[in-house]
Structures are given as C-alpha cells and as structure tokens.
C-alpha cells in the first residue's frame, strides 16, 4: 500500500496553504496531495470572471506542476477520496486503492446545495463551483435570452450580472426578504438591487419556486404565488454544503454537524485527522459556538494553522475564531463587509449615507470596540479593520474621526498598534 507522512485532500486555498505551512517546517517528510479536480489548482472565487470571459480559463491557476515538483509533493489529480478509514489511518480512493497516512488534512471544501424542489431533477440547470461548471456556463450565457437565477447570494448575483451584461433578460428569485442576505444589510442590499434593476434585471425577493418542468426553451418554473417563468438558462445558486460524504461510509467517528468539527488547531476529534476551509466547522470569533465561515480568507487561515499543527511547527498560534469578510463588486461599484452584522445587547450602530455620492457606511460597536463595519462605495482597508476587531482595540478616543474617515484613522491606528 502507498504510504505518506502527510496526506492533504483537496487542491484549493485551504489545501495549498497547508502544503506551504508543512514545507516551511518539514522540508523532507513525504507529502501527497489528492484532489478530485482534474485541473491545476484554481480558486472557486475567480470563476465568475471565467464565466464573464474576463479571465481566460488557462490563466487562473494558482500553482503549476513545477511547484509540486520543487516542493516534493506527490500531486494526484482526478482522484477523489471515497472513504476515510481513520481507525487504521488509511484513505480509500474512488478507484478502490488505499493510501496509508500518518496525518491527513481534509480540505475538500464545499459543493452547491441543491434545493429539493419538485421537478428540478427533470430539467437541466447550471451550478457554479468548478472550472468545468464555469466553462459550461460561459458557453451558455452567450446563447441565453431568458435566464433565471435561483438564489441571491454572492455567487448568484455575480452570475446574474454576467448574464445581464451578456444581453439576457434576467430574473433573480430569492427566498429571503432581501438580496445578499447574511452579507450586507437592508440598505446596502437596496443599493445593490437598484443597480441591478437599473440595468434591466428583475428581482423577486421573498419568493420561492415550488415546481419545475421541462419546456420548449428549457424549463418552466412555478412560483409560490402561482406565476410562472420560462428560462433557457437556469442557474441554481442557493448555497453550499460541505464535501464530507467520505465520512458517512466509514469514518463515522469523525464528528460532524453542518461541517467537520474542529478544534482551535483544526484537529478533529479523531487522532491524526485535521480539517480546514469550507468543509470545516470551527469556532467563530464572536462566540464559542462552532460556525460555518465559508470564505476564502478563512480557508487560507485555517489551512495554514492545520499545516503548522500537522508538521509540529512551534510557531503555531491558535485560531482566533472566524470573522466574516466579504468584498463584492457590482456594476462598477464595490461593497466591503468586515465582521459581524449582529448587534448584541448594549451594542451601538452608526450609519451614514450620502445620496449624491452613493457612499454608505455602517459600523457596529460594543463598549467602543468595533464588531463589524460595512461600506458601499466607501473604501477602507478590510485587513486593518479585521485587526481592530480581532485585537478589540478601544476606539473611544477616536470614534468620531474613525466614522468620518475609517481609511485614514484605521491606518493611523495600525501604524501605532501593530506596525
């Protein structure tokens, strides 16, 4: 049986960061990277730009074969983990072969969650998570005249914008009361909605598709209120679910809820097994509860920590907890959100909105410490804001100035506190 000291499963952000971290501390230990994807490593986050055609599919790769050679990584693409046999430290692959590991990292990310709508399995639809999904969608939007996007999260909104720009008439159907729920607040969502409707998209929030059936051009959708829509292109973007089927079959001992439960060093409850990124459920920054924080920056952070822990790097600092971070570009405007949108008891919310410039800022404080900050068309350094939150910096002396100009005041604080 093939043997390896480190087995890293996945080839995206969390996995690649773990490889870097392992190699920084252990230059020699045998390291195998296993991924079900057949392409070189790429980020799901770049895929909307492959769909739009802005990024050529062959220029998005994060690493090349040379990288794996230079770092002495056995890189196996196109082979998926089928079952984890943690009790005997082996991984069973899709082709039935097994690899024995000393330490394994599960960085298998997430896949689109497909809602259980009757008839969905009868029609053809798109999703967007892999490069193959993106190339298919890229070809399809050029043909589309009537497109429907299910789900107004960032994935759906990105695709909808692409479709609008490609000249299709686009309808976005979202169950929640507002767009980009969970990322941006109602005011910001309205600004986003207006940009879309100004550009001709139709937005149906608070509605639900109850039935689908094949039609002449593609699919016929029936909404809760009885109206119907016809689509020659249907994109399902109603959220994601972690890839962890390989646990169900055998490794039942690895605790998982919504994701694979991990400690502050990304270790699971089972010896020699770590998990990081979109498939992991780790401590949140704002409470001890374990949360899903399926964003790119957190995947890199968790991957780094897992790799250091696996290699026994003494420089390891434990995970401070996930802080939501999102950036979103829409029709030439940008929105940034850093931190929690929840206002705790005794919390304070400050907003300012300038109609003419379209600049919107919202900040949430508790005891003069920043909990979250959101801006539309208002640029501030997200990385600096994140440090202010993580370090719980007392802002009482500068709060007014900070709200007027978070960019400058954030930099001043940075240069004093953690330069």
């Amino acid at each position, binding site marked *: 049986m093939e043997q390896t000291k480190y087995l890293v499963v996945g080839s995206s952000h969390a996995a690649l960061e773990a490889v870097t971290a392992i190699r920084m501390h252990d230059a020699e230990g045998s390291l195998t990277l296993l991924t079900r994807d057949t392409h070189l490593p790429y980020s799901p986050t770049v895929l909307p730009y492959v769909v739009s055609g802005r990024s050529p599919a062959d220029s998005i790769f994060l690493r090349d074969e040379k990288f794996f050679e230079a770092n002495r990584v056995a890189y196996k693409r196109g082979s998926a983990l089928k079952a984890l046999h943690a009790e005997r430290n082996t991984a069973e692959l899709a082709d039935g072969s097994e690899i024995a590991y000393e330490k394994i990292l599960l960085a298998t990310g997430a896949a689109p969650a497909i809602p259980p709508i009757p008839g969905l399995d009868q029609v053809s639809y798109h999703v967007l998570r892999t490069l193959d999904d993106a190339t298919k969608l890229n070809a399809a939007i050029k043909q589309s005249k009537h497109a429907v996007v299910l789900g107004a999260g960032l994935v759906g909104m990105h695709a909808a914008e692409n479709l609008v720009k490609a000249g299709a008439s686009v309808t976005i159907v979202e169950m929640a009361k507002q767009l980009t729920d969970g990322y941006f607040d109602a005011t910001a969502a309205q600004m986003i909605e207006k940009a879309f409707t100004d550009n001709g998209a139709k937005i149906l929030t608070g509605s639900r598709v109850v039935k689908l059936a094949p039609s002449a051009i593609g699919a016929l959708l029936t909404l809760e209120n009885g109206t119907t829509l016809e689509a020659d292109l249907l994109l399902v973007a109603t959220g994601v679910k972690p890839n962890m089927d390989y646990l169900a079959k055998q490794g039942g001992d690895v605790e998982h809820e919504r994701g694979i439960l991990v400690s502050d060093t990304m270790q699971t409850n089972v010896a020699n097994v770590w998990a990081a990124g979109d498939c992991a459920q780790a401590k949140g920054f704002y409470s001890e509860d374990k949360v899903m924080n399926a964003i790119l920056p957190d995947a890199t952070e968790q991957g780094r920590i897992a790799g250091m822990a696996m290699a026994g790097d003494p420089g390891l600092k434990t995970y401070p907890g996930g802080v939501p*971070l999102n950036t979103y570009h829409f029709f030439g405007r940008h929105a940034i959100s850093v931190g929690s949108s929840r206002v705790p008891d005794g919390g304070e919310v400050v907003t300012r909105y300038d109609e003419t410039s379209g600049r919107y800022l919202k900040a949430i404080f508790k005891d003069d410490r920043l909990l979250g900050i959101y801006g539309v068309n208002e640029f501030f350094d997200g990385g600096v804001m994140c440090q202010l939150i993580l370090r719980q910096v007392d802002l009482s002396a500068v709060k007014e100035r900070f709200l007027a100009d978070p960019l400058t005041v954030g930099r001043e604080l940075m240069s004093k506190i953690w330069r």
Partner: protein
Amino acid sequence: MGKSYNTIAFDSNKCDGCGDCMTACATIKTGTDDKARSRIQIVGSETDGFELALCRQCGDPKCVTVCPAAALTKNFDSGVIDWDASKCVDCLLCTVGCAYAGIALDAGTGHVAKCDTCDGAPACVPACPHDALTYITTSRIYNEVGGWEDLFAPGLAGCQGCNTELLMRHTLRRVGPETVLATPPGCVPGMGSVGFNGTTGTKIPVFHPLLTNTAAMLAGVKRQYKRVGRDVTALAIAGDGGASDVGFQSLSGAAERNEQILFMVVDNEGYMNTGMQRSSCTPYGAWTSTTPIGKGSGGMPSQGKTQDAKNLPLIMVNHRCEYVATASTAYMEDLYDKLDKAIQASKRGFAYLHVYSPCTTGWRFPTDQNMEVARKAVETNFVMLWEYNPKDGLHFTHSADEPLPVTEYLKAMGRFRHLSPDQISHIQGKVVENLAFVKQMAHREN
C-alpha cells in the same frame, strides 16, 4: 542561502508630514498630484508623530495567498510583490488580507495599487526633503557574498547577539581560500577559529600566536610563502587588547617594516573573552571588571575607567601604512569597500582595518541591539568612520557633521549607566576634541 532584498526605510523622527513623497509617487504612478492615489501613505500628526502605510513586500505575503486570480506573486528575484493587471479581477480580497494597508483601491482606476519600488529606484525617496526615507541597498552585498564559500565551520560559539561572527565570516569569504589566518588569544579563537580537539574551525590554515607576537609571526609566515612563490593573503584578526596593549610593539614593528599583511582589529574595548577586563581601548567612564563601580578606597568612589581610550587607528596612520581605516558592522557597504581596499593594499604593504564591535555581554545591552549600538556610536561621533592612504591622506567616509548628543549612545548600554553629569560632559568634550583632531588630520593630510 536565501536572497536578501533592497528596501525602503522610514525614520519617523525625521518626517514632518510634508507629503512630498506622496506627491512624487502619485505623479510618477498616476500622472496626477492627488496624494490619495500615492502608494506610500504618510499618516499621523505633528503631535502623535508620523507613520507609514506602505507595502512591506512581505516574505510570506498574505495578499498573495488570498488572491483568487493568481494576480499577485512574490518575485524572488527583486523581492517585490508583483501585481499583474491582466489577471486581476478587482475583487479587493487582497485589501482584506493585508493587515498593513499595503495594497489598496486606487479610486482613480478602480483597481488595486501597491508599491513596486519603481523597479529599484523609488521616486518617493529622493523627494523627501528631510532624509526620512532611504532606499537601503546593502542587500547586494549579502547576495554577492552569499554565493561565496563560507570559510568558517558552522556553529561558532560566540555570545548571543555578537557581531564578530558576522565580521569573521564576511571577512574570510571576501579574502577567500588563499589565506593564512592568525588569531591571537581573544574572542575570535574563543569562538572557535582555532578549533577543538585537533580540528580547526576554519577551512584555511589558521594559527594561534601569542598576544605579543602576532604581527611578527604572521610577517614571517608571509615572507616564507613569498619565498616559495605563493600569493597568499596574510590576515590577522585580533582583539583590541592583543593589538593595543601587549601586542603593540610587534604590530608597530611590522607596520614600520611595511610587511605585506592585512591586520584587522575587532575592537570591543576590553578583554571581553577573559572576563571583561579593561584595555587601553576601553573608553573613559566605562564599567569593566577591573574598573568597577562602588565605594572605592581612600574615600574615592570608583566610577569606571578613569583614563581615556588610546586611539589606535590614528597611531597606525602615523606609521604611514599603505592603508588604515575605521569601520563598523552597522555600515556594511562602507566596511566592504574598506575591506576591498585593505586586501589590495596588503599586496603592497601593511594594511590596517579597525572595526568597532559592540559587545553584548561586556557592554551590557540586549542581544538584539548590536547593530543599533554600533549605529549610535557613529551617529554620535563617538566613533568616526574614515580611511587613510599615504597618497590621498585621510578622508571621512561618513559625515561627522550634525552628530546626535553622545548621551544617545551612552544610554543604549549598561556599562555607562552609573555616569555622573561631570563624567558625561567629559565624554562629550572628548568626542568634540577627537573630531577636531581627526578633522585637522584630514585637513593636513589632504
């Protein structure tokens, strides 16, 4: 060996917030004078002091790891984090990744922008009217030298934070394998140059003369090599005790005979290897184990050394050697320049290089402060950097104008902690006097 890189350094003490650097950057990068679009951002105020938000060209950069489009890469040749406009998708994730505001949105273009050091000639640096910005280019030395053979064994046994290992390794790399090395008793053999258990600590012939006869023995060795027709550099690395006290007569004799020797003195101002006794190079007022602080005797409290240091390099100038220079490891480019000249001069006659070497253990300062102490010595004129050869006379190689008060140097270490105001003014007075003296020499020799 890892590569080292040039870098933009900022001295907040010199910055008055004028913003000329930002204007220069905006002009060259955006064609406007809009400071908000500059890649270098000065923040802060007169009262709080000014600080910098600028890409630090991190070695393990977070912005690169969070970029989904492979638009950012660490360029291991230049050290710069390159941004590829053709790959960037304007997602702004890098600005969320960087904790230092080193990459930010340029509202004028709608893309992110960051410092690229203007391909090695940063426009901001010369634009600063107060010398608060400098472009440090010492890296070229480390990159060049890093490729040469290290002629010392790994793992020398120096005190933590000592700069002598740096000096030894650099010097031997520079002089190269065709060298015979003499290391009289002192820190250099103490660190392992003469080796242990019958093996040497160097990859070249090394010997351990007496304190008293180093220059004489080395002169003989050199002459023998010459006699058999081999071109070998004869190098001594000696301490200040070995050179200025008991070793002085043989040193002076060899200089007078103009022997073809490169004699390097590592001046840590005392016999540090044997327990920190005073030498004739120990400065006035300094604590050593033989110039202690305490009650004293006969009603006279003891307050450190009561005599001034001997100025050995100036004495060597008066031998009219082929080459004499003072140097400091805080000024490596200067040191290298002088080492090259000294090597050349030693082919013609006697070359003498005097390197000031702060001693973490004997001078009592934290082990991470060696370069800072060495720099402060020069910035206060406690130590002056100059060189001499018979043809061009004596020249300063580092400006001695506008020095900091000597207290800036004294307070950096424990051996001067006890000084009375009188003692401090004595030392300040000596610094002024020494400067006048060297200036006079510089004048006379030219």
